[in-house]
């Protein structure tokens, strides 16, 4: 971090350069939710670059048939690390970081309920991630067999058993994720407690901003879904290190059980990742459409029901496994069911935009992109939830296209929207609008060029996780298009990096409330002082700042 605010030493510019070591010490020893939030998001973005680099190498290898840029072993490691990184080391820290920063600000609190536990959670996450990446050096250096994990991000047994996965690479996958998921659980518990017990005066549950509501449900999902993963990983670790038989078919263990346990965590995890995307969009769209969110109570109800239903759909990842038709049908039904609250949300966002005075600043642009891309991802999701269709394209590039539309087109677009929206609050500087718009269009075009053709190559039968293919399959064009799209996306990300760098140096000053927004975080300085609010705020409605700006027509008269 290049800028740092020294508490109590504000001079004219507000920024001081302290010696490097003392600045480092300040960041390491901080228990401030805002600094931890910034660290979470920055770490997540760095891992995003690493994960993106891994994806780029895979697309390079797949650009033309019979390519030899990567060996099959390296390719296996890359897709494993790409998936694991993007889910656990990019999605999780960014969502926890934004929640860390803005949940206390939006509910008018001075910090999370347990500030030190919060720091502990962050460091566990970071060290867990580093431990996972240490496998690139450690696993090979000590035993000479294998390096990074190469078993896929869901690490299906019995491939992960000692017999098939020699060396320690899979152990690194287990331990790295175990450590970082302890951190996530701790922070999840912290968020729930903060939201339930530390809201400012007047903020009843139904007056909370939607971001807070969604993060509450998100944290509850983290609390319920992450421990089963830890339990499954511990059992796998016992299999590998002590010779237990949990997932070892030769000893009577069940490989299907691992799949059940993993996806019992894995599917809620998908919603853990996408609920924050809903949260950012629900905050940003009303502000840029100059209207209140359409159907607030319905949004809350939809969020809660998504949280519930997401715990009961995991078998749709296992349709091709050969479970009984009854089981498949039940889970097909529950998966269709989850499309209802998600659809309600889509309609409410569109309903908010309908008739609004829309300002297409960069955050809104990314939100619009989110709506369109997430809609496509959601619809292919409904297609995949249909068992007969799933049997046709299971484990093909169609699935890869689907979940990238959800997680990239959905989550990453909304994360960029959130960064453009809240960057002024966090740093006090505006990001450049023109660079931001360039980034959006590059990313939007590149994204569609990369992941759109994957639906076609998947329909043509191209399986996931293959490291190369023959020229006679009719997949060349689609793969080439996908790989070209990556180059355009890289250009978009470079625009973003340059934008952040330039704005931190010489960005326009933001002031406390650059977007004329309505939630509490905009009622304090940018960046906020360490104590957030001088006096504990009192709110009367869902838009406390509207009430203050328009005392002649306050919201609380009507809610």
């Amino acid at each position, binding site marked *: 971090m290049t800028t740092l605010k020294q508490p109590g030493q504000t001079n004219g510019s507000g920024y001081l350069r302290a010696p490097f070591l003392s600045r480092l010490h300040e960041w390491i020893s901080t228990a401030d939710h805002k600094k931890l939030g910034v660290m979470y998001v920055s770490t997540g973005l760095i891992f995003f670059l690493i994960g993106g680099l891994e994806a780029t190498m895979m697309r390079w290898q797949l650009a033309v048939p019979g390519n030899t840029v990567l060996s099959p072993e390296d390719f296996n490691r890359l897709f494993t690390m790409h998936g694991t990184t993007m889910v656990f080391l990019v999605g999780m820290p960014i969502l926890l970081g934004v929640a860390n920063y803005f949940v206390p600000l939006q509910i008018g609190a001075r910090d999370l*309920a*347990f500030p030190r536990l919060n720091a502990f959670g962050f460091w566990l996450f970071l060290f867990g991630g580093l431990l996972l990446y240490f496998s690139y050096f450690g696993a090979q250096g000590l035993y000479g067999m294998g390096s990074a994990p190469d078993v896929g991000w869901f690490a299906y047994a019995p491939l992960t058993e000692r017999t098939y996965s020699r060396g320690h690479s899979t152990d690194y996958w287990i331990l790295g994720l175990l450590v970082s998921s302890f951190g996530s*659980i701790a922070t*999840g*518990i*912290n968020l*729930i*407690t*903060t939201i*339930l*017990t*530390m*809201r400012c*005066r*007047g*903020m*009843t549950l139904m007056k909370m901003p939607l971001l807070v509501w969604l993060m509450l449900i998100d944290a509850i999902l983290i*609390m*319920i*879904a*992450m*421990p*089963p993963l*830890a*339990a*499954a990983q*511990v*059992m796998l670790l*016992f*299999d590998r290190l*002590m*010779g*237990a*038989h*949990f997932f070892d078919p030769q*000893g*009577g*263990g*069940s490989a299907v*059980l691992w799949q059940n*346990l993993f996806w*019992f965590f894995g599917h809620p995890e998908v919603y853990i990742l996408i609920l924050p995307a809903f949260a950012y969009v629900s905050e940003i769209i009303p502000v840029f459409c100059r209207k209140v969110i359409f159907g607030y109570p319905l949004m809350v109800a939809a969020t809660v029901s998504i949280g519930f239903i997401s715990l009961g759909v995991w078998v749709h990842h296992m349709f091709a496994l050969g479970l009984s038709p009854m089981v498949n049908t039940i889970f097909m039904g529950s998966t269709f069911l989850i499309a209802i609250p998600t659809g309600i949300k889509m309609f409410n966002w569109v309903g908010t935009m309908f008739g609004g005075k829309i300002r297409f600043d960069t955050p809104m642009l990314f939100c619009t992109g989110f709506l369109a891309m997430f809609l496509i991802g959601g619809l292919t999701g409904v297609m995949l939830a249909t068992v007969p269709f799933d049997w046709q394209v299971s484990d093909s590039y169609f699935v890869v296209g689907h979940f990238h539309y959800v997680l990239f087109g959905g989550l990453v677009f909304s994360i960029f929207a959130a960064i453009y929206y809240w960057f002024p609050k966090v740093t006090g500087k505006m990001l450049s609008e023109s660079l931001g718009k360039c980034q959006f269009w590059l990313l939007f075009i590149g994204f569609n060029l990369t992941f759109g053709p994957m639906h076609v190559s998947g329909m043509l039968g191209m399986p996931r996780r293959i490291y190369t293919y023959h020229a006679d399959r009719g997949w060349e064009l689609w793969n080439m298009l996908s790989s070209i799209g990556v180059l355009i996306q890289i250009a978009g990300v470079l625009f973003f990096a340059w934008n952040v760098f330039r704005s931190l140096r010489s960005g326009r000053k933001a002031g406390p409330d650059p977007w004329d927004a309505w939630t509490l975080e905009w009622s304090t300085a940018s960046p906020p002082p360490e104590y957030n609010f001088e006096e504990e705020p*009192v709110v*009367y409605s869902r838009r406390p700042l509207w009430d203050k700006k328009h005392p002649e027509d306050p919201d*609380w*008269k*009507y809610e």
Partner: protein
Amino acid sequence: MSATPTSPVTPLLSPPEAMSQAMDSGKCGMLCLICSEITFFGTLLAVYLFYIGKDPAGTPTPSEVLEVSAAPMKVVFNSFFLLTSSIWITLAVRSLRKGAMRAFAFWWLLTILFGIEFLVGTGMEWYGMIADQGLTIRTNLFGSGFYTVVGFHAAHVAIGLFLLSLVFVLTLLGFMHKRHAEKIELLSWYWHFVDGIWIAVFTIVYIIGR
């Protein structure tokens, strides 16, 4: 043609009242921790239930091990100690609330001793199984499940005992006061949770699993 509404929704006349917090942060946090621990143990126990009677390797079976070594009686004895310790810790917290520090120290120590007895008992049971029956975690599915489930419970008891002992030492050093009753009560909640989980483990491993 159309209806003419008189006034919009009646405005609230006074600002909302100050909200009273339903719950203390510490309590909420501890409840959440217990929730996530329950899902952790729930997963382990579900796996154990799933594997009951599915062991291809055969010997030793749960009924052989859990009966022949006279484990049932020993286990019932141990369980009695663990479960009654919940009573003692409740009495300890009550004493602390009243500020009766001596009574607090007494009941607290009793809780620790009963917990230690349970841990020692489990250790002896394990020793008997490993030495006499030759059952280890790698023997068969039953061994894998048994040592994992009971082991994780024992680890939680051990962590609890460590924290309890820490509080005991602080009490002896005179750092504990009436005003800490809230924090101490949270610790007692954790201890109750460890006991509750034992009831589930006992039912599944020693009754259903046999």
